[in-house]
Protein backbone atom coordinates (compact mmCIF):
# COMPACT_ATOMS: atom_id res chain seq x y z
CA UNK A 1 0.00 0.00 0.00
CA UNK A 2 2.73 2.45 0.95
CA UNK A 3 6.05 2.19 -0.81
CA UNK A 4 9.38 3.56 0.41
CA UNK A 5 10.34 6.97 -0.94
CA UNK A 6 12.97 6.41 -3.63
CA UNK A 7 13.05 9.62 -5.66
CA UNK A 8 16.45 11.10 -6.40
CA UNK A 9 15.60 14.52 -4.99
CA UNK A 10 13.43 14.50 -1.85
CA UNK A 11 10.28 16.51 -2.40
CA UNK A 12 6.80 16.75 -0.99
CA UNK A 13 5.41 16.22 -4.50
CA UNK A 14 7.64 13.21 -5.00
CA UNK A 15 6.16 11.72 -1.84
CA UNK A 16 2.68 12.55 -3.09
CA UNK A 17 3.34 10.68 -6.31
CA UNK A 18 4.72 7.43 -4.87
CA UNK A 19 1.47 5.57 -5.35
CA UNK A 20 -2.21 6.18 -6.07
CA UNK A 21 -3.24 5.97 -2.43
CA UNK A 22 -0.96 8.74 -1.20
CA UNK A 23 -2.54 11.17 -3.63
CA UNK A 24 -6.07 9.94 -2.88
CA UNK A 25 -5.64 10.26 0.86
CA UNK A 26 -4.05 13.69 0.48
CA UNK A 27 -6.83 15.07 -1.73
CA UNK A 28 -9.55 13.58 0.47
CA UNK A 29 -7.98 15.08 3.55
CA UNK A 30 -7.60 18.55 2.11
CA UNK A 31 -10.69 18.81 -0.11
CA UNK A 32 -13.39 16.43 1.10
CA UNK A 33 -12.93 16.89 4.86
CA UNK A 34 -13.16 20.71 4.73
CA UNK A 35 -16.23 20.33 2.49
CA UNK A 36 -17.86 18.18 5.17
CA UNK A 37 -17.03 20.86 7.68
CA UNK A 38 -18.48 23.58 5.41
CA UNK A 39 -21.56 21.40 4.90
CA UNK A 40 -22.15 21.11 8.64
CA UNK A 41 -21.69 24.84 9.18
CA UNK A 42 -24.13 25.70 6.39
CA UNK A 43 -26.64 23.15 7.64
CA UNK A 44 -26.52 24.65 11.13
CA UNK A 45 -26.94 28.14 9.67
CA UNK A 46 -29.91 27.13 7.50
CA UNK A 47 -31.62 25.41 10.41
CA UNK A 48 -31.10 28.45 12.58
CA UNK A 49 -32.54 30.77 9.90
CA UNK A 50 -35.64 28.68 9.14
Amino acid sequence: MFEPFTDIVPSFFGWLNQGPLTLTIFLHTFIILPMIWIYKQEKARLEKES
Partner: protein
Amino acid sequence: MAKTSVWSDNRFWQRSAAWITGFSAVLLIWLTFDTAGQISMGTDADLQNGVTKRVPGPTVINYKISYEMSTARGHEVPVIGEKEKFFGRDDWSEEEAGALLHLGKLGSQVKNCMNCHTLLGNGAYYAPDLTKAWLDPAWQNDGTMQAMTGKDTKEEAMAEFLQHPSTYPTHARMMPDLGITAEEAKGIVAFLKHMSSIDTNGFPRNFGKIKGAVHGK
Protein backbone atom coordinates in the same frame (compact mmCIF):
# COMPACT_ATOMS: atom_id res chain seq x y z
CA MET B 1 -41.07 22.95 8.96
CA ALA B 2 -39.68 22.04 5.55
CA LYS B 3 -36.47 20.07 5.68
CA THR B 4 -33.55 22.36 4.82
CA SER B 5 -31.35 21.17 1.93
CA VAL B 6 -27.69 22.17 2.05
CA TRP B 7 -27.15 20.73 -1.45
CA SER B 8 -29.39 23.34 -3.03
CA ASP B 9 -27.85 26.13 -0.95
CA ASN B 10 -25.67 28.56 -2.90
CA ARG B 11 -23.42 29.42 -0.02
CA PHE B 12 -22.30 25.81 0.48
CA TRP B 13 -21.16 25.54 -3.14
CA GLN B 14 -19.60 29.00 -3.13
CA ARG B 15 -17.54 28.25 -0.05
CA SER B 16 -16.56 24.80 -1.30
CA ALA B 17 -15.49 26.16 -4.68
CA ALA B 18 -13.54 28.98 -3.03
CA TRP B 19 -11.76 26.50 -0.78
CA ILE B 20 -10.88 24.06 -3.60
CA THR B 21 -9.78 26.82 -5.99
CA GLY B 22 -7.69 28.56 -3.36
CA PHE B 23 -6.11 25.35 -2.11
CA SER B 24 -5.32 24.13 -5.64
CA ALA B 25 -3.83 27.51 -6.55
CA VAL B 26 -1.50 27.39 -3.56
CA LEU B 27 -0.57 23.79 -4.41
CA LEU B 28 0.18 24.64 -8.05
CA ILE B 29 2.28 27.69 -7.17
CA TRP B 30 4.23 25.56 -4.70
CA LEU B 31 4.59 22.84 -7.35
CA THR B 32 6.01 25.40 -9.79
CA PHE B 33 8.76 26.41 -7.38
CA ASP B 34 9.40 22.80 -6.39
CA THR B 35 9.78 21.85 -10.06
CA ALA B 36 12.10 24.78 -10.73
CA GLY B 37 14.36 23.43 -7.98
CA GLN B 38 14.19 19.88 -9.28
CA ILE B 39 15.09 20.73 -12.87
CA SER B 40 17.79 23.30 -12.15
CA MET B 41 21.09 22.22 -13.65
CA GLY B 42 23.93 21.04 -11.44
CA THR B 43 27.47 22.38 -11.63
CA ASP B 44 30.90 20.99 -12.41
CA ALA B 45 31.62 20.99 -8.66
CA ASP B 46 28.51 18.84 -8.08
CA LEU B 47 29.82 16.28 -10.58
CA GLN B 48 33.28 16.24 -9.00
CA ASN B 49 31.88 15.93 -5.49
CA GLY B 50 29.38 13.25 -6.42
CA VAL B 51 26.34 15.41 -5.66
CA THR B 52 23.39 13.75 -7.38
CA LYS B 53 21.28 16.14 -9.41
CA ARG B 54 18.35 15.21 -11.56
CA VAL B 55 19.87 17.36 -14.33
CA PRO B 56 23.68 17.27 -14.11
CA GLY B 57 25.88 20.17 -15.18
CA PRO B 58 27.04 20.56 -18.78
CA THR B 59 30.49 19.10 -17.99
CA VAL B 60 28.81 15.70 -17.71
CA ILE B 61 29.93 15.31 -21.35
CA ASN B 62 33.42 14.59 -19.93
CA TYR B 63 32.14 11.44 -18.26
CA LYS B 64 30.95 8.01 -19.28
CA ILE B 65 27.19 7.67 -18.91
CA SER B 66 25.57 4.30 -18.47
CA TYR B 67 22.28 2.93 -17.28
CA GLU B 68 21.72 0.71 -14.28
CA MET B 69 18.60 -1.03 -13.07
CA SER B 70 17.62 0.29 -9.65
CA THR B 71 15.58 -2.32 -7.82
CA ALA B 72 14.59 0.25 -5.18
CA ARG B 73 13.16 2.65 -7.76
CA GLY B 74 11.90 -0.05 -10.10
CA HIS B 75 13.45 1.37 -13.25
CA GLU B 76 16.79 2.15 -14.87
CA VAL B 77 18.71 5.16 -13.61
CA PRO B 78 21.58 6.98 -15.32
CA VAL B 79 25.00 6.40 -13.79
CA ILE B 80 27.76 8.95 -14.34
CA GLY B 81 30.99 6.98 -14.39
CA GLU B 82 34.68 7.61 -15.02
CA LYS B 83 36.09 10.20 -17.44
CA GLU B 84 35.46 9.59 -21.11
CA LYS B 85 36.78 11.50 -24.09
CA PHE B 86 34.21 13.51 -26.03
CA PHE B 87 35.51 14.57 -29.46
CA GLY B 88 39.02 13.74 -28.24
CA ARG B 89 38.84 15.74 -25.00
CA ASP B 90 37.75 14.99 -21.44
CA ASP B 91 38.55 18.44 -20.05
CA TRP B 92 35.66 20.52 -21.43
CA SER B 93 35.27 23.46 -19.09
CA GLU B 94 31.90 24.49 -17.72
CA GLU B 95 31.77 27.46 -20.15
CA GLU B 96 32.84 25.43 -23.21
CA ALA B 97 30.49 22.56 -22.44
CA GLY B 98 27.67 24.99 -21.68
CA ALA B 99 28.20 26.82 -24.97
CA LEU B 100 28.25 23.51 -26.85
CA LEU B 101 25.02 22.36 -25.20
CA HIS B 102 23.43 25.72 -25.93
CA LEU B 103 24.40 25.44 -29.59
CA GLY B 104 23.01 21.90 -29.67
CA LYS B 105 19.77 22.91 -28.01
CA LEU B 106 19.25 25.78 -30.45
CA GLY B 107 20.22 23.44 -33.31
CA SER B 108 17.66 20.87 -32.20
CA GLN B 109 15.04 23.60 -32.13
CA VAL B 110 15.91 25.27 -35.41
CA LYS B 111 16.02 21.89 -37.22
CA ASN B 112 12.77 20.93 -35.49
CA CYS B 113 13.92 17.48 -34.27
CA MET B 114 10.64 17.17 -32.38
CA ASN B 115 8.73 17.16 -35.64
CA CYS B 116 9.68 13.46 -35.86
CA HIS B 117 11.58 12.54 -32.68
CA THR B 118 10.69 12.69 -29.00
CA LEU B 119 12.92 14.56 -26.54
CA LEU B 120 12.14 14.11 -22.84
CA GLY B 121 8.56 13.19 -23.64
CA ASN B 122 7.94 16.09 -26.03
CA GLY B 123 7.63 15.53 -29.74
CA ALA B 124 6.58 12.82 -32.15
CA TYR B 125 7.07 9.09 -32.46
CA TYR B 126 7.57 9.06 -36.22
CA ALA B 127 11.30 8.56 -35.62
CA PRO B 128 13.12 7.01 -32.61
CA ASP B 129 12.87 8.53 -29.14
CA LEU B 130 16.06 10.56 -28.61
CA THR B 131 15.82 10.95 -24.82
CA LYS B 132 18.38 8.17 -24.25
CA ALA B 133 19.73 8.00 -27.82
CA TRP B 134 23.29 8.43 -26.55
CA LEU B 135 22.97 5.06 -24.79
CA ASP B 136 21.55 3.26 -27.80
CA PRO B 137 23.76 0.18 -28.39
CA ALA B 138 23.59 0.73 -32.15
CA TRP B 139 26.06 3.63 -31.73
CA GLN B 140 28.49 1.80 -29.45
CA ASN B 141 31.83 0.34 -30.47
CA ASP B 142 30.43 -2.94 -31.76
CA GLY B 143 27.24 -1.33 -33.04
CA THR B 144 26.27 -0.92 -36.66
CA MET B 145 26.40 2.89 -36.84
CA GLN B 146 30.16 3.28 -36.32
CA ALA B 147 30.87 0.75 -39.06
CA MET B 148 28.35 2.40 -41.37
CA THR B 149 29.74 5.91 -40.91
CA GLY B 150 33.37 4.75 -40.81
CA LYS B 151 34.03 6.48 -37.45
CA ASP B 152 35.75 5.07 -34.37
CA THR B 153 33.78 6.82 -31.65
CA LYS B 154 30.14 7.19 -30.79
CA GLU B 155 30.18 11.00 -30.94
CA GLU B 156 31.95 11.13 -34.29
CA ALA B 157 29.59 8.55 -35.77
CA MET B 158 26.58 10.53 -34.52
CA ALA B 159 27.96 13.82 -35.83
CA GLU B 160 28.72 12.28 -39.21
CA PHE B 161 25.24 10.78 -39.42
CA LEU B 162 23.61 14.11 -38.49
CA GLN B 163 25.44 15.92 -41.28
CA HIS B 164 24.54 13.37 -43.97
CA PRO B 165 21.55 11.41 -42.66
CA SER B 166 20.12 10.58 -46.06
CA THR B 167 23.40 8.89 -47.06
CA TYR B 168 22.96 6.15 -44.46
CA PRO B 169 20.07 3.76 -44.88
CA THR B 170 18.92 3.21 -41.31
CA HIS B 171 15.20 2.88 -41.39
CA ALA B 172 12.25 2.67 -43.72
CA ARG B 173 11.53 6.26 -42.67
CA MET B 174 14.85 7.82 -43.68
CA MET B 175 15.97 10.98 -41.95
CA PRO B 176 16.14 13.85 -44.44
CA ASP B 177 19.24 15.97 -44.94
CA LEU B 178 18.68 19.07 -42.80
CA GLY B 179 21.84 20.96 -43.70
CA ILE B 180 23.37 20.50 -40.24
CA THR B 181 26.94 21.86 -40.14
CA ALA B 182 29.86 20.09 -38.47
CA GLU B 183 29.82 22.49 -35.51
CA GLU B 184 26.04 22.21 -35.10
CA ALA B 185 26.30 18.41 -35.24
CA LYS B 186 28.91 18.50 -32.48
CA GLY B 187 26.58 20.63 -30.37
CA ILE B 188 23.60 18.39 -31.01
CA VAL B 189 25.61 15.30 -30.02
CA ALA B 190 26.67 17.07 -26.80
CA PHE B 191 23.02 17.98 -26.22
CA LEU B 192 22.00 14.33 -26.70
CA LYS B 193 24.78 13.08 -24.40
CA HIS B 194 23.74 15.51 -21.68
CA MET B 195 20.08 14.58 -22.12
CA SER B 196 20.87 10.88 -21.59
CA SER B 197 22.34 11.74 -18.18
CA ILE B 198 19.10 13.33 -16.96
CA ASP B 199 17.24 11.29 -14.37
CA THR B 200 13.81 11.00 -15.96
CA ASN B 201 12.30 8.57 -13.41
CA GLY B 202 12.76 5.74 -15.89
CA PHE B 203 11.38 7.44 -19.00
CA PRO B 204 11.30 6.09 -21.67
CA ARG B 205 9.95 2.93 -20.07
CA ASN B 206 11.56 -0.40 -20.97
CA PHE B 207 14.57 1.32 -22.53
CA GLY B 208 16.77 -1.13 -20.58
CA LYS B 209 15.10 -4.05 -22.35
CA ILE B 210 16.86 -3.04 -25.58
CA LYS B 211 19.75 -5.50 -25.89
CA GLY B 212 22.97 -3.80 -24.80
CA ALA B 213 21.32 -0.72 -23.33
CA VAL B 214 22.27 -1.40 -19.71
CA HIS B 215 26.04 -1.76 -19.24
CA GLY B 216 26.36 -3.37 -22.66
CA LYS B 217 24.31 -6.40 -21.55
